């Protein structure tokens, strides 16, 4: 039996009329952990956001399929209910909405993709018990569930909330965008444990990072290096180690054209900022 597979073929993505991704190919199967590394501005987050269906990221060419189904034809909520999850680098604050209420809606919809608007949510008692258990595991105070979604959270709290959400939603494919940044060593270990707990064999993981904290606990089978909107090299976990130790100089020299594009994209970003 073939494992559930997320297939990305020749993906081109623009923001406004600015091309960011210029032909990305990637296949992630269940149980596999992929690391996506690369310098700033190379397009790593763009890949994640395009997979999740952010309306600001326009796919101009190529395809994304989940077990053969056209992901690009799905709205972001359909993608979530189809089992795709992304832990955001900067998750949005939703003032006035309690974490627990938000998670109860999300969990209900993802577990019951056919749910119609207005139908019952997961029973409160059952949900609370599960949430409490997962929060305890992540060493989160119970009070956290009553706080407003990402509102006034520290960087570390936001990342933990994203991991908690992942733990509740139990996705089949998870994209973690810089989830390790802003976390101390303990938190990284907990996050890694949570990933392990959900079951790596039940998930396909795409870890976007330019550190390697999460990777220490979740050694990738595949490491990809993105530069100038393309994957320029793919290797095993030894590639991640090399990049961690030596940085991107070798990569930049080996791919001057992509490096030039990357510099260009970075300078445009700087102008906009």
């Amino acid at each position, binding site marked *: 039996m073939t494992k559930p597979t997320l297939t990305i073929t020749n993906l081109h993505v623009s923001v406004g009329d600015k091309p960011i991704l210029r032909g990305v190919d990637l296949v992630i199967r269940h149980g596999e952990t992929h690391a996506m590394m690369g310098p700033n501005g190379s397009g790593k987050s763009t890949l994640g956001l395009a997979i999740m269906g*952010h*309306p600001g990221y326009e796919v101009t060419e190529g395809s994304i399929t989940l077990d053969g189904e056209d992901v690009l034809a799905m709205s972001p*909520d359909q993608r979530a209910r189809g089992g795709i999850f992304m832990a955001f680098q900067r998750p949005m604050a939703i*003032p*006035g909405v309690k974490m627990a209420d938000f998670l109860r809606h999300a969990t209900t919809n993802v577990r019951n*993709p056919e749910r119609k608007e207005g139908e019952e949510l997961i029973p409160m008692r059952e949900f609370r018990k599960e949430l409490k258990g997962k929060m305890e595991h992540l060493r989160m105070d119970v009070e956290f569930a009553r706080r407003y979604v990402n509102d006034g959270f520290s960087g570390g709290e936001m990342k933990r909330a994203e991991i908690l959400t992942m733990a509740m939603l139990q996705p089949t494919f998870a994209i973690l965008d810089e989830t390790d940044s802003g976390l101390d060593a303990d938190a990284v270990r907990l996050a890694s444990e949570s990933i392990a707990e959900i079951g790596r064999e039940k998930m396909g993981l795409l870890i976007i990072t330019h550190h390697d904290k999460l990777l220490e606990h979740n050694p990738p089978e595949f490491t990809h290096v993105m530069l100038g909107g393309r994957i320029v090299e793919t290797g095993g976990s030894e590639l991640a180690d090399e990049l961690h130790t030596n940085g991107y100089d070798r990569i930049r020299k080996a791919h001057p054209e992509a490096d030039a594009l990357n510099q260009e994209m970075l300078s445009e970003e700087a102008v906009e900022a």
Partner: protein
Amino acid sequence: MAIDIADNSEIGEINKYNFRTETTGVFKAQKGINETIVRQISEIKNEPKWMLDFRLKSLKTFEERPMPKWGGAIDIDFQDIFYYLKPTDHQGKTWDDVPQEIKDTFEKLGIPEAERKFLSGVKAQFESEVIYGSLEEDLAKQGVIFTDTDTAVREHPDLVREYFGKIIPPEDNKFAALNSAVWSGGSFIYVPPGVKIEFPLQAYFRINAENMGQFERTLIIVDEGASIHYVEGCTAPMYSSESLHSAVVEVIVKRGARARYTTIQNWANNIYNLVTKRAYAYGDATMEWVDGNLGSKLTMKYPAVHMMEPGARGEILSIAFSGAGQHQDAGAKLVHAAPHTTGQIISKSISKNGGRSSYRGLVRVEKGAHHSKNNVVCDALILDDISRSDTYPYIEILEQDVSIGHEASVSRIGEEQLFYLLSRGLTEQEASAMIVNGFIEPLVKELPMEYAVEMNKLIQLQMEGSVG
């Protein structure tokens, strides 16, 4: 006194009944407003002369005063409105007359049949009088007076005369004058010194106010050190075939007393809702308005607190939701008339489907009101490209040593917020309802539990677009 009704065939039929008896008789005034109508209303209510004089004087003021030149566009033919309807006439309506959208809302809110009929004006009374009766007795023992204002004029003339029209005189504005001339129904409450009523008073209103008039008149007097929470209306929609609702609400909060007045209104979409609400708070007293406005064609409502003595406190929490074809011109007024007074306004508005919301607020610190503090927070949420929000904050400071803050923000439902919730599996509708509910959370958490639940449901219905 004599009313000349000989040349008025439309109301000639009242001769068939003994219209001086309050409980029987069908009476419908003729359309339009004039001295005859005003005299008739007063006569039917068997009012003392001072009230008739007050009405007549108010009528003159109404006729002289121009329409407000600000706010929303008012297109009312004052001569095409019935100014007085006996409750028996309301009962003549049937459930079938209630518009389907209102019925649907009742259904979705899960409001019991009896209550639906009451709220829609089909039925004028609640069933469970016994319970209310005993509660009422308990209040009466403590010296609390809670009745409709018509009854109060007859049974508590001294109290009424002392305060009626003193906080909001007929000269205040054209619609206050109109109400003063033709008012009917509304609540009268007097809380004696030191009496603290722990539960919100509202159920009584349903019993007592046989005629929740289009021109109701409410007067609340909270004596020294007493406290009350009054909840007006309900989160459920009110429907009316009439086009104009113009109430006057006066609240007196004496030294050390505390009053909270909560309103959540959801009118049918053809109603002009033009209401004047004002409170005087004396030494160390606290007045709080919690005011929610949904529905109506145009709402112009600015609850006010005048802080008359040192230590007085005024807080206003206001929310408006405007959908297609609606204009909510809502806001608040705080007047610091004494030193060491504190005021706060939190105003939230939501506009959707071409709806228009305006915040119109006044903060005034009078000469001598030094060491006053005031803070205004005013947030608008716009759900699409065709809706509109405006802010008109007026700030008049006539004293040096004061602290005044004003924050205003306007935001669209952010694409990023929406995407975040969608990426967690929420539908677009669930997501925007969640963002809106979060936006009004500061108001909802001030409501008693059952109202908070209904408020949330109502917002959800507004978001679905199935109502109005």
